[in-house]
């Protein structure tokens, strides 16, 4: 029961943070609500017995990406929300599209009987040791390729940040 309560609490927190990202008038508030959502999702990962993912999620998202967003918001000094509002019919159409997408997804999940055989939960999956073994044994190639991806991203970011013309 305690687990159920935590699950619902974290879900409500994540959904509230997500909605407030859109509804807040200042971009800095949106960034802070996004951080709240990321922490709630990290809590969900712990509930799913994925401890390694939870820690990595908190470090990468709440630690690095949010800091990047905060730097950019403060660098660009965006606190004045002085845009002329979008036409109301456009906003209404987008919200209706989003709600219909949500209804479609809910309908898919309601009408589908999950007949997966309930295996006894292997409690070792989320641990760092097991994930590390599988990562280095079966998924070695994507691991190395992702290092090349990071290298490319770093080179791109530095090139984009240079002041003088190349």
């Amino acid at each position, binding site marked *: 029961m305690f687990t159920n309560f935590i699950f619902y609490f974290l879900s409500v927190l994540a959904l509230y943070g997500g909605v407030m990202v859109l509804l807040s008038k200042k971009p800095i508030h949106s960034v802070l609500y996004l951080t709240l959502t990321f922490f709630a999702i990290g809590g969900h990962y712990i509930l*799913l017995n994925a401890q390694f993912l939870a820690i990595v999620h908190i470090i990468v998202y709440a630690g690095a990406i949010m800091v990047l967003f905060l730097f*950019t918001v403060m660098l660009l000094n965006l606190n004045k929300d002085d845009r002329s509002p979008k036409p109301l019919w456009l906003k209404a159409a987008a919200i209706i599209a989003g709600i219909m997408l949500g209804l479609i997804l809910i309908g898919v999940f309601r009408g589908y009987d999950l007949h997966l055989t309930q295996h006894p939960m292997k409690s070792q999956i989320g641990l760092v040791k097991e994930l590390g073994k599988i990562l280095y044994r079966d998924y070695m190639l994507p691991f190395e390729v992702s290092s090349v991806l990071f290298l490319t991203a770093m080179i791109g970011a530095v090139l984009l940040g240079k002041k003088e013309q190349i």
Partner: protein
Amino acid sequence: MLFCIGVTGVLIKRNALVILMSIELMINSINLLLAAFSAYSNDPAGQIFVFFIMVVAAAEVAIGLAIIVLIYKTTHSIDIDVLNKLKW
């Protein structure tokens, strides 16, 4: 659910930063779904995939923010209704 909120955010907002944040929200909702399925079917492949998705998302956020900063330096506005010069 979070995915729908992210999609609505991408469609409504004019501030390019908030659009990027809505994309991050969508990616996170997919991560959560994958991790849930991985826990349900005792398959560690889901968690490995989430790991790689996080890698790609982090790289994409870095590059996206660099592009936004550059756009701001040249045009001093990150309102996408002003920045629609790629259209005809």
